[in-house]
Structures are given as structure tokens and as C-alpha cells.
């Protein structure tokens, strides 16, 4: 919402400065986004006259002008404008003047050997509309020596208010003035319009043609004819008003409606009566109807929209935009002025559907003052008669303005209850009264407060409190400590929340860098990682590559690794922890942590180095990350199975599934499928894992934090190494399990220290070295006992894994 200071002052008697006004507006809830004072930056520009213009001795396109600036002797100015000529009145800038458009301060200069003591200016150099090719041409009566901006009446500052949608009343200058007056910044002086007596009945009838339950679409439609008008360009004051807020003057009749839209937040419409055939009917549009609107575009209408029509069809789109065919132009002699009320939702819907944004729609969809529909029509009539002459008819009214007033039973104590502020009842009453509320005391500390018709946002007690508070000043609120909870603060995070934050730090501690990628991915990415479900597709994605809710964190990370590689960072180690979407309902949103490694970014090192062999990150790195995460989360992995193979986005032979049973999968790891990477245009190999944090078993709830008793043996553990030969396809994990199971009491640990294929090992076989730690429990083991245990281990390995001891 834009208004100018002088416009404001037609509604507000005030001596307040521009700054005070702007600050008060912001302080009371009409946030001033910008104040543009065009005169402020132009106060050094002077009206001057060229006395003499002679060709520049050293340049064809330049002239040397003698300029009368109204102060002292004429000054010599070199000028390049073709229209510089003797006698011309124009705008002069002396050295030291800041030139807004050029963003520099003018200095004295010597141009091609001739001294220049200033500059003659074009409109564009002053950031004013106009010709950039030549210097400004002022009328002959422009007074030499005057400040140009003052003479040209540019000095009207424009205030731009960022209007909140609850304040349609402030979409009119008068409404803004009312707020300022309530805030103590002057006297609100807007008077209600005086009715214009109708000289004859309105010859055009109006019918609201709606089914009973559709009546809400157009509660009121008022119309009046003014005949014998003379249309044409508006007087300067009206053109200036409209231009000052960026509107284009068109003709008197149209300008009057635009003026009242901004002056009183009362949109009106004018029809050229001669272009209207028969009576007006307000009705739903019919399927297939079209309207060529005032913006020159033809809109297809549908029965959701309301139109004003005559026999020939729609003339105007109710509350949104008029039609071209019935518009007023210079030839108009008889004008029909419409003032109506429309259903805000319907106007919003129509505007949205047709993509039309107008000042009328803006106000109707927020809610205009229903009580001002008829006074607004009177005011418009007044202006039409003032500017265009003519004779007004009586007003024809169809429907009626809704009568209900909004009355709030308001206990004055509510202000204290919600704000903590003590405001005297009298003061509250004064504030409300100034804002147009009617306050009637109905008991001890209680009042019946009637909202003014122009405030559709007032509903209840809290709204009244807000009115009092915003005028009193929210800065008055006293900061009051919130009572602290008793004792030491209790923990506030849920187990899953703790798990996520631990996961992040654990993965970062693994050397992975955390990324935050979009929750949406492309359809191709979604499908590649098990998604693509139509219920998880956005109906209105912002871009085609952000169309599907991600089924996994991996597509985002893969794309990120690809982008980093394209920038020259081939070795990347990334992770993300966050939501993934496996279904559109609440349960379908899951929490995962995933990571990937590409290039030489292994768990041990990143890039080549002298100390460790150069190695590409592979499935085991991903597995190490996944297990580091599970360990950090305290997940009991004892019962967890590692199964070869993973979903289709993984390499079939170099991937695994982590699960606590076939229906309790907690995640996957491995190399990503080379074909998928190729389709996603990311060079592999990439090793990755994804763990579903919300699928991990919860730790057992225990009554105390006491850890189980630590049992330490005084007997030395001993270690024995075994080299087994197994089939190449055999799984080391199985062998290890067999070994560990050979004697659960004595075998404390077994780990694989070597895996070997090649010379010395039969074709199709591999050798696995297992180091077994034996912990004697009650007494030192004898050689015989140790040998017996070793035989048991070998027998178990043979029975369960078909392993033989390597010769």
C-alpha cells in the first residue's frame, strides 16, 4: 500500500514530521517498508536558463553555454545535449551536486580544453521519468534560481506500507490516517460524504440472479447513472495523486474510481451507459462465457465466477476487473457507477484461477467496509459531477449490506491477562473509541465493545487486546522471567532424537562430512532407490528434478558426490541424517543415517599418502562406517545378521543387509550398482551405507544404571592361530561363528587375521587365518587340555564350514 505525505494530510491534521509518521506507522502495526522522498536527493538542482549556446571550439557534438542560475554572473557550462539552446529553461547542477542516476558528485571540469562550471541535466540523470537524450525543457514561466524539486512539486514523499492481510481498512489513505490519529499523531479529519440528490430514477435496473444459498456471493449491488458528463484527462491534482503512487492516469471517470480505491479502500466500477444493453444482471458466469477485460486479455469464465452481465453477456468480472467493451472513454457521456459488496473467498478464488491481480481484488478479498458501499457511491458521484459535470440519477440498490455488528463482551482485565500490562480502563476506552470502536460499560470492569464496520478482522477479546496494545505501544511490555522448572533441568530429548544427534557426531568422527540435501529428488533418482510412488510425488514441484519425496538419503548424497567430483574433489566422504519417505502417511516418514565414500576417501585416510597403501574406498569401508555408527549408538549387534546382497541399488555381489531377522532389516551397505551410477551420470565406484535409525532395537529399560559385574580372571589368556582352507564362496563369518561356538566357556575371542587365495592354496579355495584367544576360567590349562580344545575347534570348523586345517 503506497501513499504520499500530502495525500495523507488530506485526511489527517498533523504537524508530525515524515520520520515521526513513518515510525508511528511501523510501531502501530502498519510496517513502513520504504519511504521515498524524491526531493531529498534533488535539493541542489536549480531551475536555470541558457542565455547563449555556441559551438565548442574542439568538439563537434558539444556546445559551450552561458547559463543564468539566478545567482551572480552567468556560468559557462559545456553541454552535449542537442536541445541546448539560447532561451531554454532547464535544470542546472553546480559542482558539488550529487547526481543520483550517475552515482557521483559533480566536480568542476575542463572538457576538451574548455572550462565547465556545472551541468545541465536530463530527466534520467535526476531519476525522473522523461527523455534521456536531451536536457530537461521547462516551461517559460519556470522561475530561474528556484529549487527544481520544489517548483516541480516533487517534494511529496511516498510511504510504502507492507500491509498485513488483516487490515483492508488501511488499504485506504483514510484508514491509515485514522490509525495515526488514534496513536496521537494528529486529528482525523475525514468527513462522511454528503449524499447527492438524485434528479431522476436510474433508467437501468439491477437484478441479483442467484439461488437462495448463493446470495452470499453478492450481498449488495448499488448503481447510479450520471448523464451528460464530459470525460477527458483528469485535472493535474488527480493525475499527480495517481502518478505519485505509481498509477497511470487514464481519464476522469476511471481515475475517480482508482482514486477512491486508494483514498477510501472502496473499489468502484464505471460502465459507459451507452454500451450497456438493457438492465444489469449479477449472476454466476456460464460455462463457455468469455470476457475481454480491461487489460486487453480474454478470460474464459466458469460458473464459480460472478459476473455483471446484460442481455449480450458478461460486462465485467465482479470485484476483479471490468470489461473492455463497456469501459468509459473520452466519448462517454452517460456513466453508470457501480458500488458493490462481494464474497471475499469467491473474489480470491476467481482472481487466483484467472491469474488476475488488481487493486480491487486485493481489497475485496480482504474485506471492504460494507457500511461504506453506499457512501462510497455518493462520494464517487460527487467527484464525477465536480470533474465531469452531469446530472445524477437516484441510486438503485439490489440486496443489502449485512447488518450484523460484531460485539465483544470485553473484560478490561483481559489486556493484563494476555500482555501483563496495566492499562487504565479509561485509556483503553479512549484508544478503542479513536479507532472507531463503540465502548459501552456493562458492569464492573466490563464493556460491550462494538467493532467498526471497516474492521472485519475483529472477532474476540484477543483482537481487542491487540488494538489496545498496538496503539499503547508494544515497547511498553515489561520483560518478565518465565518461572523456571524446579530443580535440575530434566532431560528433554526422546531416544530417537538422542540417537540422531549421536549418529551425526559418530559419523563425523568417522571422517565423514555432513551434507543437508533436499527432501525431494528427481523421479529418476527416486525410482533408482526404490521410490517413485505416485503418492509421494509433488503436484506442483518447483523444478522437475525436485519432484519426488526421497525414498533414501543416498540419491542426494550420490548427486552431491558427483557435483564435488565435477569441481575437482574426487575423494568425497559424505553423510546425512534425516527423514526419508516410504509412504505418504505419518508412519511412512522414517529417519535414516546414510553415508558414502568415493575415490580414495577410505576410513583410514583420504587421498594418497606415504604411510598407508593407496586404496579405493569399497564395501568394507561402508561396512566399517555402518558398524562404527551402530557401536556409537550402543546397538547390541550380537543378534544382528549380516546377509550377502542388498536392494537393487547396490552391487549384487558387493553388498550386505543388516538385520535382526528377515522382517527386521536395519540397513544396508556395499558398493552402489554401477549401472545405476551410470544412469545418474555419476562416476563410481561409490561405497555407501544406510541405517534406519528408527528401526534399531531400543536399549533394554533398566531400573538402575548399574552395569553388570566385571569378572576378571587372574589366569593368563593364551592365543592360538589356525589356518583353515575353505571353499572360495564360504563365508568367513560362518567360520568364525563355528570357531567361537566350539567352546563358549573357554574361547573369549576369535578374529580373522588373514584371508588368502593363490599359490599354495588349491584352486577354488581360500585360506582363512583365525587367531583364537583362550581364557582359562578356573585353572591353567594343561597341554593335553589345550590340544583337546584345538581339536574341538577344528572339528567344529569342519562340521559347520567344511573347513580343513591348512597343511
Amino acid at each position: 500500500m503506497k501513499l504520499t505525505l500530502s495525500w495523507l494530510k488530506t485526511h489527517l491534521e498533523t504537524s508530525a514530521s515524515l520520520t515521526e509518521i513513518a515510525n508511528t506507522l511501523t510501531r502501530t502495526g502498519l510496517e513502513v517498508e520504504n519511504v521515498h522522498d524524491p526531493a531529498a536527493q534533488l535539493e541542489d538542482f536549480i531551475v536555470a536558463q541558457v542565455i547563449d549556446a555556441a559551438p565548442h571550439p574542439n568538439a563537434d557534438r558539444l556546445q559551450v553555454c552561458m547559463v543564468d542560475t539566478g545567482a551572480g554572473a552567468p556560468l559557462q557550462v559545456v553541454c552535449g545535449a542537442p536541445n541546448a539552446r539560447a532561451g531554454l529553461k532547464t535544470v542546472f547542477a553546480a559542482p558539488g551536486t550529487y547526481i543520483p542516476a550517475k552515482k557521483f558528485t559533480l566536480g568542476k571540469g575542463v572538457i576538451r580544453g574548455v572550462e565547465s562550471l556545472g551541468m545541465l541535466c536530463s530527466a534520467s540523470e535526476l531519476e525522473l521519468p522523461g527523455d534521456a537524450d536531451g536536457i530537461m525543457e521547462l516551461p517559460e514561466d519556470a522561475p530561474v534560481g528556484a529549487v527544481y524539486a520544489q517548483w516541480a512539486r516533487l517534494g511529496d514523499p511516498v510511504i510504502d506500507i507492507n500491509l498485513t492481510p488483516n487490515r483492508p481498512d488501511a488499504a485506504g489513505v483514510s484508514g491509515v490516517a485514522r490509525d495515526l490519529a488514534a496513536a496521537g499523531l494528529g486529528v482525523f479529519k475525514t468527513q462522511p460524504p454528503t449524499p447527492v440528490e438524485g434528479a431522476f430514477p436510474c433508467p437501468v435496473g439491477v437484478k441479483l440472479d442467484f439461488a437462495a444459498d448463493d446470495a452470499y456471493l453478492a450481498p449488495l449491488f448499488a448503481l447510479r447513472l450520471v448523464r451528460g458528463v464530459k470525460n477527458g484527462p483528469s485535472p493535474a491534482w488527480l493525475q499527480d495523486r495517481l502518478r505519485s503512487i505509481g498509477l497511470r492516469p487514464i481519464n476522469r471517470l476511471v481515475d475517480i474510481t482508482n482514486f477512491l480505491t486508494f483514498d477510501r479502500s472502496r473499489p468502484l466500477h464505471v460502465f459507459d451507459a451507452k454500451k450497456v444493453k438493457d438492465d444489469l444482471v449479477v449472476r454466476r458466469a456460464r460455462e463457455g462465457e468469455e470476457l475481454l477485460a480491461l487489460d486487453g486479455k480474454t478470460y474464459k469464465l466458469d460458473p464459480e465466477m460472478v459476473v455483471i452481465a446484460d442481455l449480450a453477456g458478461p460486462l465485467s468480472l465482479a470485484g476483479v476487473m471490468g470489461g473492455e467493451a463497456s469501459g468509459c472513454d473520452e466519448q462517454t457521456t452517460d456513466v453508470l457507477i457501480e458500488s458493490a459488496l462481494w464474497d471475499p473467498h469467491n473474489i480470491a478464488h476467481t482472481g487466483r484461477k484467472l491469474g488476475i491481480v488488481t487493486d480491487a481484488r486485493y481489497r475485496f478479498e480482504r474485506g471492504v467496509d460494507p457500511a461504506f458501499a453506499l457512501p462510497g457511491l455518493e462520494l464517487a458521484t460527487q467527484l464525477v459531477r465536480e470533474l465531469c459535470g452531469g446530472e445524477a440519477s437516484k441510486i438503485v440498490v439490489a440486496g443489502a449490506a449485512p447488518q450484523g455488528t460484531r460485539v465483544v463482551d470485553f473484560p478490561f482485565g483481559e489486556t493484563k491477562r494476555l500482555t501483563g500490562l496495566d492499562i487504565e480502563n479509561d485509556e483503553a476506552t479512549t484508544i478503542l473509541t479513536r479507532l472507531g470502536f463503540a465502548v459501552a460499560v456493562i458492569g464492573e470492569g466490563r464493556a460491550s465493545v462494538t467493532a467498526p464496520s471497516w474492521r472485519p478482522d475483529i472477532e474476540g477479546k484477543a483482537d481487542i487486546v491487540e488494538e489496545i496494545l498496538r496503539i499503547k505501544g508494544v515497547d511498553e511490555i515489561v520483560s518478565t522471567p518465565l518461572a523456571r522448572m524446579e530443580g535440575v533441568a530434566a532431560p528433554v530429548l526422546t531416544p530417537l532424537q538422542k540417537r540422531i544427534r549421536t549418529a551425526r557426531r559418530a559419523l563425523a568422527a568417522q571422517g565423514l562430512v555432513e551434507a543437508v540435501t533436499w527432501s525431494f529428488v528427481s523421479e529418476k533418482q527416486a525410482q533408482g532407490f526404490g521410490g517413485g510412488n505416485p503418492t509421494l510425488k509433488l503436484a506442483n514441484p518447483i523444478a522437475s528434478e525436485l519432484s519426488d519425496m526421497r525414498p533414501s538419503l543416498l540419491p542426494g548424497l550420490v548427486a552431491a558426490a558427483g557435483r564435488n567430483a565435477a569441481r575437482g574433489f574426487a575423494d568425497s566422504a559424505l553423510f546425512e541424517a534425516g527423514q526419508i519417505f516410504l509412504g505418504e502417511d505419518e508412519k511412512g516418514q522414517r529417519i535414516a543415517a546414510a553415508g558414502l565414500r568415493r575415490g580414495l576417501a577410505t576410513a583410514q585416510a583420504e587421498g594418497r599418502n606415504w604411510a598407508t597403501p593407496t586404496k579405493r574406498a569399497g564395501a568394507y569401508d561402508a561396512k566399517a562406517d555402518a558398524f562404527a555408527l551402530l557401536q556409537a549408538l550402543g546397538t547390541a549387534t550380537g543378534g544382528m545378521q549380516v546377509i550377502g546382497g542388498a536392494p537393487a541399488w547396490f552391487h549384487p555381489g558387493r553388498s550386505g543387509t543388516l538385520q535382526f531377522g528377515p522382517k527386521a532389516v536395519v540397513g544396508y551397505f556395499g558398493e552402489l550398482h554401477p549401472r545405476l551410477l551410470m544412469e545418474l551420470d555419476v562416476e563410481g565406484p561409490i561405497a555407501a551405507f544406510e541405517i534406519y535409525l528408527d528401526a534399531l532395537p531400543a536399549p533394554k529399560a533398566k531400573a538402575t544404571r548399574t552395569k553388570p559385574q566385571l569378572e576378571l580372571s587372574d589366569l593368563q589368556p593364551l592365543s592360538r592361530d589356525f589356518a583353515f582352507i575353505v571353499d572360495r564362496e564360504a563365508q568367513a563369518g560362518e567360520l568364525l561363528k563355528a570357531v567361537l561356538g566350539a567352546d563358549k566357556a573357554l574361547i573369549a575371542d576369535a578374529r580373522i587375521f588373514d584371508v588368502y587365495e593363490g599359490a599354495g592354496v588349491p584352486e577354488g579355495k581360500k585360506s582363512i587365518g583365525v587367531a583364537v584367544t583362550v581364557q582359562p576360567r578356573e585353572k591353567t590349562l594343561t597341554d593335553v587340555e589345550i590340544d583337546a580344545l584345538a581339536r574341538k575347534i577344528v572339528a567344529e570348523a569342519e562340521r559347520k564350514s567344511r573347513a580343513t586345517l591348512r597343511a
Partner: protein
Amino acid sequence: MTDLTELEQETLRQIEAADNEAALDAVRVAALGKKGAISALLATLGRMSPEERKTQGAKINALKDVVTERLAARRAALENEALEARLKSETLDVTLSPPSSALERGRLHPLSEVMDELTAIFADLGFAVAEGPDIESDDYNFTKLNFPEGHPAREMHDTFFFQPGPDGRRKLLRTHTSPVQVRTMLTQKPPIRVICPGRTYRCDSDQTHTPMFHQVEGLVIDETTHIGHLKWVLEEFLKAFFEVKSVNLRFRPSFFPFTEPSMEVDVQCRRQGGEIRFGEGEDFMEILGCGMVHPNVLKNCGLDPDVYRGFAFGVGIDRLAMLKYGMPDLRAFFEADVRWLRHYGFRPLDFPTLAGGLSG
């Protein structure tokens, strides 16, 4: 007893002369071994008279002790020499570095760090962390929050929608974390103190807007809270978050459908180069929106607005991070450029705590 004296001198000379462990051991064997000279002398004690044994015994034992002691000393000296010699040959190029540790390489995204900071601050004030789904119903995202159907305020939210389901209703991506407030009020009895951090979405993209961003909202519902408490909480929160001694806030009346009265809050600051300093300067920067929870919202969530009241506020987490840590461009948050992540990211053990200071 010149024999003993001679034996002593000779043995000690040999000990000193021994220049390696083997030679020294030979001296030991010759003196103290089974057939050694001193052992032989000790063997004669048994045949002596008690008196002779007393004098001679003491002397021979003294000799044995001296020799033993000198042997040990010489052995220690030889070992020391050998070690010194070995150490001289053992040198490393200490300018070579081992591969960087994982702790050195890993980083947390600044958003994660800031969320942990927020949690630490609000946990101290007794706020729990509430969460909800990103895919929401129109009812929870708008209607229950007092956005009337077709109201322009809905339009301002640039909502992402899904295709309508079998019931004709279309789900949407939440445009704010306020539906979590609704969920909290529907399931918990006051007093309520929660913050609701999370991802939010709007169909908008330019220099300062991304289609996905992060928001934290706060909600307090009880029977005593008013705007004065809201002001205090925001002041304390911003002071703690920006780690400054004071902040100066400017409250402006504003409009949100779900609060009444509603306010926007500007914070006083000074911009200097890429830095923003709070609690000083001439500028006021809009930082958050807040207000008393609208009676209609309370009613929609089953709470009697004449009994319960409270406040809510909302602020962009991304924006908080940018203001505190100086990232100039929001879009970079989601580009996963490792250079950016390493530069603006946090080390794995930079755990924000109130005891240790949020950002150390």
C-alpha cells in the same frame, strides 16, 4: 693376604677391561662361576677353624660383594653404551605427517550444530523438543491454525501439494512447523513448553529463499503466561544463542493467523564487513515472528482459551546460523559443496553445552 688383594685388583681390572657383554660374562664366570676363583676361595671356608673363618670369611665375602657390584655397574655401563649407539642409528624425519585422523576430517553441518545449540538453551528453560511429519494434512497446517479456507494468508504460504488421495483430500508439505504445535496441544495437557525444530517447505526460490528450509518454533501454554514472558524468553534466547551480554529487541505489531496479538521482532545490530554484531549499532533487523496463541487455535486443539493461554514464536534456523556464523548465501546450505562444509562445518567434538559455552 696379598692373594686376596691381588685377586681383587686383577678381577676389577678385567671387569673394567671387558668391552662387551660376552667378555664381561667371561670375567664373571672366572671369578664367581662354579669354578671361579672367588667361588674356590669360598669353598675353602668350610675347612677353616671358626676363628679363621670369621676373619677370612668376611674378607672373601667382601671381595665377592665388590666384584658383584662392579660387574653390575660395568654391565649397566655397557648396556647404556649399546643403547646410546643404537639410538644414534635410529632417526626419523619428523616432518613427515601420518594421514589425518578421522576426527580431523569429519564435519557437522552448521544446521546440526545450531539445532544442538537451540536444544541446549531451551532445555535449560524447560522446553522439550517436539517433532512431527513433513507431509501434513491441510487441517493441521492451516485450518486448525486459524487460516480460514481461501484466506489470502494461505496464499502467502506458497504451498507444495501432493495429488489428492482417494478421499479427495490432498496432503501437503508443511509450510511451517506450527502443525507440530497443534499435535502437541492435541496430545499433551498443559503446562506445555516445547520447541519444534524441523524442515519446512515453500514453493519459492531466489537469492534468499530455498524451497526447503528449517524453522524452530516455541510454544508455551499454561494458565499464567503473558507477552512479558514471551519477551523475556526471546531476549534470553537471543542473548544465549548469539553469546552476547545484551540484546536490544524492537517489537512491532503484526499479523499471523495463529496468534493474537501478533508481533514481529527486530534485533538491534551493527553490520561491519561480513560480520553482524548484536546489542549495538544503528540497524534493526527483522528476526522472528511471535504472539499469544490465538483463542481459535486453542479451541481447535481442545483447550479453553479462558483458562489456558500462552505464546508461540518462530524463527528460521538457517537464518540464525547465517547471522551467527556469517554464511552469506542460504542456497549454499543445501549444495553439499565439501569446501563449504569444511569451512563452515563443525568438528565432531564441538558439542555445544551451556556448561562449556555453546561455541567454545
